[in-house]
């Protein structure tokens, strides 16, 4: 067998990888601080896709729900770190801090969150990678919570910070969707660290990475704050 000529392979690689777009070089989003032309094109299109998804979003369209026997067992862990690194938050001393355009910014304990009406759902979580799992979550409707704390729901964004350093933000329309909840329970029991204890966002109208876990902060604002993956190139809206 003849060994492939490395220079020819390299040329083939380039021709295939960039095709007619020879003017748009490079491994994309490689260096977010120094965007090249390809990055600028992709950013512009991602912004356009955010607008298109906002236009496509119907607040009355519900994500499909499933029966208990369709729940994925065992549940699938996923994060940007190994399961052993999942943050341990003491539920007794836990507080959800509030910020931004909110009238009553006093922090919420877990006990207080449990006094609010609880909403249960069996929905599908679709990962940006393509796989999907079905799970049961229950907790407080985010829309109810935002009204309860006197949040200005005319603001554009609701942002989240997490105990593991993760952060994300969503549009207000999706935040007020009836299936968007601050989940406290998963599969009928309080959330475990790997699955976002003690409080996580569960939003079945968006991809999995828009469901931040172990929330420590919730903010309401008109200022875009991006997200952990969004800042690296994932589309911000990422609606399903």
């Amino acid at each position: 067998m003849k060994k492939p000529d490395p220079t020819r392979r390299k040329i083939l690689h380039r021709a295939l990888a960039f095709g007619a777009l020879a003017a748009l070089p490079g491994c994309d989003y490689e260096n977010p601080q120094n965007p090249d032309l390809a990055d600028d094109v992709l950013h512009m299109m991602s912004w356009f896709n955010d607008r298109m998804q906002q236009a496509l979003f119907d607040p009355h369209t519900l994500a499909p729900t499933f029966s208990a026997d369709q729940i994925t067992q065992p549940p699938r862990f996923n994060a940007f770190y190994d399961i052993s690194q999942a943050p341990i938050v003491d539920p007794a001393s836990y507080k959800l801090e509030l910020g931004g355009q909110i009238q009553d910014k006093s922090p919420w304990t877990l006990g207080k969150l449990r006094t609010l009406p609880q909403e249960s759902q069996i929905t599908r979580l679709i990962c940006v990678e393509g796989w999907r799992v079905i799970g049961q979550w229950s907790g407080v409707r985010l829309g109810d919570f935002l009204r309860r704390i006197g949040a200005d729901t005319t603001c554009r964004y609701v942002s989240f910070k997490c105990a593991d350093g993760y952060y994300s933000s969503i549009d207000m329309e999706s935040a007020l969707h009836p299936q968007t909840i601050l989940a406290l329970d998963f599969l009928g029991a309080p959330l475990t660290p790997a699955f976002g204890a003690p409080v996580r966002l569960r939003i079945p109208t968006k991809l999995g990475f828009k469901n931040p876990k172990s929330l420590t902060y919730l903010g309401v604002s008109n200022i875009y704050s991006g997200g952990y993956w969004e800042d690296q190139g994932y589309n911000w809206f990422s609606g399903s």
Partner: protein
Amino acid sequence: MPETTKRARPRKIHPLPLRIMHWLNALAIVMMIGSGWQIYDASPLFNFTFPTLITIGGWLGAGIAWHLAFMWLLMANGLAYLIWGASTGHFRRKLWPLSPSAVLQDFRRAFTLRLHHQRGVYNAVQKLLYAGVILAGIAVVISGLAIWKPVQLWFFCDLCGGYFAARYVHFTAMAVIVAFFAIHVLLVLLVPKTLPSMITGGKMPEPQP
């Protein structure tokens, strides 16, 4: 119409709108398939992944970004092609009639090297390939929209048999398009005189006496 104007402007094999749409589609398809393979690799449906060498983007985030950028070109251009092809009679003239017996006959002729290529006229096998790739193009867009928006565009998702099945439909339609692409490029290499006319438009040969 006077005879002279007919002589002055001979009919092109490929009209200008078709040529523009052809090359825009070629660009969109290459970008969509290369970035699609990158996305596939993040969560493979089968027991293989595509080598990084032939994927576009370098990592999942960029693969998705390219895919969701070029899908608009693919869809807008594809829609323009369908409207143009139906309204100008292009589909009716080029792809009709198409019967299984004609396909079989032309296959037999091709394998015995007795199939003549007449520029501007498609034989039954070509008709089948072009009609097939148009249908695969429609399937790839519908299943793609189903995967992108399984909640908001739930009707496309239902049409594909749900989100999970839509990924397989999307993959299959891609495979059909790649197979067409391979045959298409191979035939152009075997009959290179067909290439310039897709750029310049070419000249329709005079009808044989």
